[in-house]
């Protein structure tokens, strides 16, 4: 999951929110829901700046906070995005959030305790030294009737089956053709000449798969807004004109 990087600091939206409501001095009733909401959104913005994909979980809590904030500044019935928070008044949503945070904090505390426990436990090593020779022969012979040869045959057979499997998988799925690679190739052609056609991009000897992937690459570039597409006649060649980088270059010159 892409917010895993962020989780090194905060394990989730509750963790972040808990951090925000906890970090101020306790005896000062200073920080309001508005501040918390503001800081929360700031944090998310920072995560985005760091190019961390902000998970929907974080956004959901942000939305809820903003709803509560809006409602508390300007009381009016609002709807909440989360199913759970849906149909709740801001007051109820706030109560629910408090309960959830308290529960989360409880488990965060337990997790700390479990972590400490596991660590101290790891300093004790259980006896598992294995049987003395004289008892080994008493152990049920799990390998009864199994020969070394038998074991070797099993292993060789597995490797063989794997080869055949990979072979067939390769056969059925053909050679995977990388779309990214083709997008790059088309983009490079466009960057060099500014325009090209589908006919120029595919050569006569191309496989059907390459036709398809080249077409997909063009669609991908179109989706990104890097290219304009025109086809003057039905079944005629598709003409491509570069958009993005060229225009920027012209603006610059």
């Amino acid at each position, binding site marked *: 999951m892409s917010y895993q990087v962020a989780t090194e600091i905060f394990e989730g939206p509750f963790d972040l929110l808990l951090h925000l409501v906890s970090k101020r001095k306790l005896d000062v*009733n200073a*920080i309001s*829901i508005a501040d*918390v909401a503001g800081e929360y959104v700031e944090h998310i913005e920072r995560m985005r700046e760091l190019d961390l994909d902000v998970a929907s979980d974080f956004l959901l809590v942000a939305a809820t906070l903003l709803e509560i904030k809006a409602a508390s*500044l300007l009381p009016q019935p609002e709807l909440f995005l989360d199913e759970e928070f849906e149909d709740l008044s801001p007051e109820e949503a706030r109560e629910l959030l408090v309960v959830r945070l308290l529960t989360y904090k409880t488990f965060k*505390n337990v997790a700390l*305790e479990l972590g400490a426990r596991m660590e101290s436990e790891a300093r004790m090593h259980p006896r598992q030294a294995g049987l003395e020779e004289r008892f080994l022969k008493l152990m049920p012979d799990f390998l009864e009737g199994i020969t070394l040869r038998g074991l070797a045959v099993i292993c060789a057979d597995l490797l063989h089956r794997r080869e055949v499997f990979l072979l067939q998988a390769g056969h059925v799925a053909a050679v995977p053709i990388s779309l990214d690679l083709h997008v790059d190739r088309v983009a490079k052609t466009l960057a060099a000449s500014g325009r090209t056609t589908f006919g120029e991009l595919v050569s006569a000897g191309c496989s059907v798969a390459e036709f398809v992937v080249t077409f997909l690459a063009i669609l991908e570039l179109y989706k990104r807004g890097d290219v304009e597409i025109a086809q003057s006649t039905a079944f005629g060649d598709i003409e491509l004109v570069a958009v993005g980088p060229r225009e920027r270059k012209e603006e610059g010159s």
Partner: protein
Amino acid sequence: MKADHALRGAVEALLFVSDEPVSVSTVSRLVGARPTEVERALQTLSEEYRDAERGFQLREVAGGWRLYTHPAFHDTIEEYVLSWDTRRLSQAALEALAVVAYHQPVTRQGVNAIRGVNSEAVLSSLVEKGLVREMGRDPGAGNAILYVTTRTFLEKFGLKDLGELPPLEEFAPDPKTESAIKERLSAIEGPPLAEDDEPAEID
């Protein structure tokens, strides 16, 4: 007493060759003594080792008794016990594990709800580590998979059984934290912050 010594020795020898916790009933059957006698012998051994400051100890874990080295000598033998698993669990994993431990059987959605974040990956890593396992499905929750902790969990955390988990109430946020959370989420507009506000410790 001679008889006591013989029983004690037999119990010791059994524990010595076992690579898992041995239950009182198993010992009782093998040494031909009543469970209460066995129980007493185990207790006595455990105390003897402790009083004599032996390099090993006898502990009750995961439904049985097992010999362990004494933690005081961990550093000495660490080098020798090569394969020992020294990896720690991440905070995320510990949180999810805590939820499963206290709420079992629990669905993934149940874990998500408490942590406020998708816990799928972290649950599968716990399953992979053998600390948590799937046990049936919850017909009331769209047949979602139910998770429970394993015997390995008990062993790794040195617990006799789940009843030994400390009560959850002990870990509830203290009143100070609780009121802080409530206040901060309800105060509409607080007074401006003083410059010298220190970060508070909420625990």
